[in-house]
């Protein structure tokens, strides 16, 4: 059965690989090892796993060809990286293209753009069709009775 105490035990068991445990943490581990055989045995088995993991695999075999290959590769021109569509150059190019298209459209349709001082002023002087805005009297308290 896996209990809350076992969960804390494993948490602390992992933590002790990185730092020195506090007194209560050390005491808890000691106590749990004494009471839970499953965790104690698993911890002993796991220690072998950590040792195997940490053991060096194979020492690197170093030879001159390693350096030579790098230096020879550096003599050749670097391969061109593929175009990234999200790169700033591509994005700013796209924005500039859209702006140019919009500007061209505006120039082409310039006849329907209102001339300053004429169309706009006429529109401003035209009274609204929905009538005047209702006036509110703030001096007297509102009455909700009909």
């Amino acid at each position, binding site marked *: 059965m896996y209990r809350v105490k076992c969960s804390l035990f494993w948490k602390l068991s992992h933590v002790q690989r990185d730092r020195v445990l506090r007194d209560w943490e050390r005491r808890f581990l000691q106590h749990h090892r004494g009471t839970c055989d*499953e965790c104690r045995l698993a911890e002993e088995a796991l220690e072998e796993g950590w040792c195997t993991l940490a053991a060096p695999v194979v020492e690197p075999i170093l030879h001159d060809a*390693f350096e030579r290959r790098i230096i020879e590769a550096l003599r050749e021109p670097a391969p061109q990286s593929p175009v990234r569509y999200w790169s700033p150059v591509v994005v700013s190019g796209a924005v500039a293209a859209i702006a140019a298209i919009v500007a061209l459209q505006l120039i082409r349709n310039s006849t329907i753009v209102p001339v300053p001082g004429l169309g706009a002023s006429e529109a401003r002087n035209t009274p609204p069709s929905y009538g005047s805005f209702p006036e509110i009297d703030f001096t007297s308290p509102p009455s909700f009775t009909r």
Partner: protein
Amino acid sequence: MFGTKALSQHPTEVLNDESYWLARCRAGDESALAVVISRHRSRLIRTSKNILRDAHEAEDVAQEAFLKVFRELGRLRDDRAFASYLYRICVRLCMDRLRAKRAEPAEFDRVEESQGRHIENRLAVERILSELTPDLRTTLVLREIEQLSYEEVADVMHVPVGTVRSRLHTARERFRKLWIEQVGDSPCIA
């Protein structure tokens, strides 16, 4: 890009200075390149091998890291950051490889039976590592094998320290469960 130039004599302290060699690399001195490579290659190959678990692939990745960094050497502002920059590039290339394909245990298939238990443990570790995601595996290797601090792992993997802490806990828990499944028979598994 690089031409052949001869090295001249210099005081020891100058020769030990990385920025001196990097300046010569920028000037196109191939012998300086060789010096810089020989200084860092062992660590790079070892780390790549620990992450990828494949000697040939590890060497390829280390070479790729050197090439990438030397080609961008002109953009490196602080020469003191060269070693960590190179290491970071190497680890990222390893992670890219891991994401592209899962590494398989090959180093330990051709060993004598006299080393039975040790080899079994080795194979179990390889299998467990191959089941971890690239992020968890790299974090575990950098901490447990390379013995980097949390801050160093965070810097290399370009993630916050808190992320390293949680990934490490997850990786260790996964390792524990898989290890007990493979070599032990304790029922105390969540």
